[in-house]
């Protein structure tokens, strides 16, 4: 069975390591915070100027001056800090953030990503995504394998305006975990009950399958 959004987040959380500074994008990536493995310490960065994001507040503690990059009200953990946007992007551009998790409309087999604009239809803007993908040491994309019309989001070449080139390292979808390598999308894991054939059918770009592909461990 294909994973739901929470399960995608749960699988990505397994990539976290003790001491990591992590930037989580809007959507599925935000959910990763709910699955940080016990026993490790991860600090979440929000590009609007917060290091040390805490849980969502109680109803009585909602603060208009304390939000995340998705403009949701949050809290700040003990040891958190606030700063301006230039400092925030110095953290990102300067390579101080260990891992970036973000969503995408399309990813190419070369690691290009498109996530901010559908010409003539939708323009949200790139926000911090272009800065993040151009500078992060490690980038994981969290997405469904296909779009609403059932078309693959893992392509030979992106068709939509790009957010960044040659930058995506890993992709966790509802069907699979894949690594972007020189030759294309290397299949690492399958969602429980999903066959290699189903993944093949849902992947337009070059899929590399070596040996037995294990199921994800959730």
């Amino acid at each position, binding site marked *: 069975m294909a994973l739901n959004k929470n399960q995608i987040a749960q699988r990505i959380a397994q990539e976290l390591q003790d001491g990591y500074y992590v930037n989580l994008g809007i959507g599925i990536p935000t959910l990763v915070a709910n699955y940080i493995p016990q026993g490790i310490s991860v600090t979440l960065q*929000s*590009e*609007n*100027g*917060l290091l040390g994001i805490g*849980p*969502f*507040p*109680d*109803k009585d503690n*909602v*603060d*208009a*001056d*304390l*939000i995340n990059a*998705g*403009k*949701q*009200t*949050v809290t*700040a953990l003990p040891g958190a800090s*606030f*700063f*301006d*946007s*230039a400092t*925030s*992007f110095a953290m*990102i*551009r300067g390579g101080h953030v260990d891992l970036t998790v973000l969503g995408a409309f399309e990813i190419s087999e070369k690691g*290009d990503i498109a996530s901010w604009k559908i010409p*003539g*239809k*939708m*323009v*949200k*803007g*790139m*926000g*911090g*995504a*272009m*800065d993040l993908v*151009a*500078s992060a040491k490690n980038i994981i994309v969290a997405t469904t394998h296909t779009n609403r019309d059932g078309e693959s989001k893992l392509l030979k070449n992106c068709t939509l*305006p*790009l*957010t*960044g*080139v*040659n930058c995506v390292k890993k992709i966790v979808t509802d069907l699979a975990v894949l690594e972007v390598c020189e030759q294309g999308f290397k299949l690492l894991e399958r969602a429980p009950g999903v066959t290699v054939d189903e993944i093949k059918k849902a992947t337009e770009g070059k899929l590399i399958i070596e040996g037995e592909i294990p199921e994800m461990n959730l």
Partner: protein
Amino acid sequence: MNKIVKNTQEAIKGIKSGMTLMLGGFGLCGIPENVIKALADSKINDLTCISNNAGVDDFGLGVLLRDKQIRKMIASYVGENKEFERQFLSGELDVELNPQGTLAERIRAGGAGIPAFYVPAGYGTEVAIGKEVREFNGKMHLMETALTADFAIIKAKYADAAGNVVYNNTANNFNNMMAMAGKITIVEVEEIVPVGELNPNHIHTPGIFIQRVFKGEVFEKRIEFATTK
């Protein structure tokens, strides 16, 4: 030195149609809502506005957009504003979208006297069109230029008559850099405190960058997505 002005009307003196304005805030957090309201009432138009976002349809910069007072927007993310998207897609509004960190740094550079700089963000994308590309340390970078404004309009929690400013939580965001990049910088605050009360160790924006201080009449401080446990 006393930089305190009486009210919003006095604060916006000299802002004219056709000018370039910077407006602080991220989403609706830390936006100068009293000045925005006054600009909406003023009918000043043909403005170029530099702001990370464009408010929502009926609050913040969204109100100026709705009334067609803005000719050009320089921003990074406008997803929360349907009217913005409509004007953009129909070509009524001139829009320059910047990667958020590039936008922040262009403003910082403008205030810091740095005319241009190189960043990797946007290389290989449509943001790179028309920009000088240069390789540093094996990685491709784009040359980006500084931004300044006729007026920078920011919002803070506290200020004193000397113009020293303290922000609250994530309401700092673009305000600190914009303070440096305005020919005239106006700060609207929730509270004016006596000179000497702010601990010099804890001041976010030193008074030299600020020309006018006033206490905002009303702060609605609207929340875009109130999210609780």
